């Protein structure tokens, strides 16, 4: 893009949003870098050329029109805290970040419908404050760091730790408003029907359901989003079912799945191996051969596997559910049950101090201080990326994913801070999670090659990432190759039709507009 067009575009954006809300000085743009970037300080690092912070929908429309007329690439963010998956930096270097932090109004909380409508800049903390101050009876689902936004987190398919159907955050979305590349405003679902009171009730509306078009997408700037929320339950109970033999895992997972899909527990279940996490509770070691693992269990007295169901609801209901859940595992030899937690809600100040707050929809930043509490050497403020692949939801799925990931990391010399093979934020799935440390020196080149190799290895096993940092988006999309990459081709056809100048979030999740398609895999600057 030539400098004169860019300068003219920026001047037009200044008149749209006000001088002080356009940033183009290096000191300001430094704050839009991805502090966990695997390209940190390298010529290929993805950085913005400017940032603009509109205050309302009309200003967003004006900015988008200015960009579209001059073919200036833009990159919308909500709160821009996507650490581990790209921070607030654009995928295409040279894009203008559209920072929506000033659009931070909670537009509606409907207590009877158990839903909310928010602007993109509303953080989980903002929403929590709003719910508390208004005496709401509703609970929201939050990711571990609560400083992100409901909208940005859901758009990148983030996850929390609460109730099924809510904790996969995009699963709880109902109704989207977005500024499209031509500057026009689209409302999905019932929002398309003027005067409807059901925008946050019936998601589908008529015809193809377009909410999904905005998930991990390049098609619009989302300016409003509706969410279903959960009525705060009366109590929470957590249990554990522990089994002693390597061979018991398949049965443990099979029954747990059946119970969850039958709504016999509604909280996020945990699957782990106490004996393989003795040294570091957040990093499971390689699963050994059956006889070795069984001998470890015998020697240590620590169970081979555990399944931890969580229940939200009235006390007498969840105690009955827990009793039934236990009854379904009683036939497994040596099975052990324990009630590991029970609290009444709202939480007492004492309970508040000892619980994992995100499980109760309470935003927190505690995760950033776990390093100093001696959780292995996990220190999130040093920087890491998340590797997160969807694997089969079965015992064999856990075993295969653990072994492939562990042996590949060892072969490639890749460190892991944290490793959990079966995270269950998203309905009906297991996502293998690994936190890989990122450096601020030359070691990142090796890290990138190693991660790319692991993406390919996982794909050979049929496992694909659900989300990833920008440096790997083309590699991950490459793996979804059925029908000669028909998925990507359809996405790009839609992109070209709706955004012919290719201005919005070019390259995000491997979807490139025609104009920049030559940058696939190699990257570049607009």
């Amino acid at each position, binding site marked *: 893009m030539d*400098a004169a067009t*860019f*300068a003219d575009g*920026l001047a037009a954006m200044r008149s749209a949003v006000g001088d*002080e809300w356009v940033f*183009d*000085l*290096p*000191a300001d*743009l*430094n*704050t839009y*870098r991805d502090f966990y970037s695997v390209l940190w*300080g390298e*010529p290929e*690092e993805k*950085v*913005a*050329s*400017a940032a603009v912070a509109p205050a309302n929908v009309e200003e967003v429309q004006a900015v988008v029109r200015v960009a579209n007329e001059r073919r200036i690439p833009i990159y919308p963010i909500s*709160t821009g*805290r996507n650490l581990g998956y790209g921070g607030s930096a654009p995928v295409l*270097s*040279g894009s203008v970040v559209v920072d929506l*932090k000033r659009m931070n109004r909670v537009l509606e909380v409907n207590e009877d419908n158990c839903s909310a409508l928010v602007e993109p800049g509303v953080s989980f*903390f903002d929403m929590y*404050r709003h719910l508390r101050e208004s005496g709401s009876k509703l609970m929201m689902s939050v990711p571990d760091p*609560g*400083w992100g936004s409901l909208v940005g987190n859901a758009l990148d398919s983030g996850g929390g730790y609460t109730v099924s159907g809510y904790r996969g955050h995009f699963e709880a979305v109902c109704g989207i408003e977005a500024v499209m590349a031509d500057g026009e405003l689209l409302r999905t679902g019932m929002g398309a029907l003027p005067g409807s009171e059901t925008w946050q009730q019936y998601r589908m509306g008529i015809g193809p359901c377009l909410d999904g078009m905005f998930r991990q997408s390049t098609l619009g700037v989302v300016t409003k989003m509706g969410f279903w929320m959960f009525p705060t339950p009366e109590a929470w109970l957590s249990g554990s079912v522990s089994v002693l033999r390597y061979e018991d895992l398949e049965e443990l997972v099979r029954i747990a799945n059946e119970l969850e899909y039958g709504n016999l527990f509604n909280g996020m279940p945990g699957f782990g191996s106490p004996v393989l996490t003795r040294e570091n509770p957040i990093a499971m070691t390689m699963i050994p051969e059956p006889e070795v693992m069984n001998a470890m269990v015998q020697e240590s007295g620590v169970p081979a596997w555990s399944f931890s169901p969580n229940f939200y609801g009235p006390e007498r209901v969840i105690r009955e559910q827990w009793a039934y859940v236990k009854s379904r595992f009683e036939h497994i030899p040596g099975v052990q049950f324990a009630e590991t937690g029970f609290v009444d809600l709202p939480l007492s100040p004492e309970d508040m101090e000892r619980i994992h707050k995100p499980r109760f929809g309470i*935003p*927190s*930043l*505690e995760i*950033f*201080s776990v*390093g*100093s*509490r*001696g959780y292995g*050497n996990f*220190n*999130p*403020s040093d920087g890491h990326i998340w590797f997160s692949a969807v694997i089969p939801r079965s015992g064999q799925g856990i075993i295969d994913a653990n072994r492939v990931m562990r042996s590949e990391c060892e072969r490639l010399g890749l460190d892991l801070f944290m490793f959990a093979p079966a995270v269950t934020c998203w309905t009906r799935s297991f996502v293998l999670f690994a936190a890989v440390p990122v450096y601020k020196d030359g070691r990142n080149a090796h890290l990138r090659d190693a991660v790319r190799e692991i993406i390919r290895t996982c794909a050979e096993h049929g496992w694909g990432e659900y989300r990833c940092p920008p440096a790997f988006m083309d590699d991950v999309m490459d793996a979804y190759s059925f029908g000669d990459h028909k998925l990507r081709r359809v996405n790009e056809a839609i992109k070209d039709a709706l955004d012919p100048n290719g201005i919005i979030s070019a390259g995000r999740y491997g979807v490139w507009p025609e104009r920049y398609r030559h940058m696939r895999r190699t990257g570049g*600057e607009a």
Partner: protein
Amino acid sequence: MTTRREVLKWGAVLPALGTGWHGAFAAAPPNNALGLDAMLVDTRFPGALAVADAPVPVMQFAGDVTRVWFDELDARWRQPGFVLGGITGSDALFVLEVLAQHQGRKVISRVALDLPPVNGVQAVRWIIAPHHPSVTA
């Protein structure tokens, strides 16, 4: 138009500037002479409270900034003004810096302190001040 090179260069320069400014800060004028409105002290570092020695209000926390930010700083940072000095772990400063930037504030001074690290976390002395016109007093 700011080039990618300029942005990267600025990022490299900032920490050095912080250390330089700290020279004056460490020469120990009283905290209020630096224009501080309050101090924030991370009690994980046993010596930190003594070093703070401040004639301005001192807020305390132990590693996790959630409560002090949610109950105190968030509201103050939405208003113009308010210069905050701190002695905290580098992990806590990382979080505070991101939160501060969101509200038009910047770390204008930072220096690693000679206190024993806690589980590998270094103590840092810093100042966060308003920077954007919407919050400069």
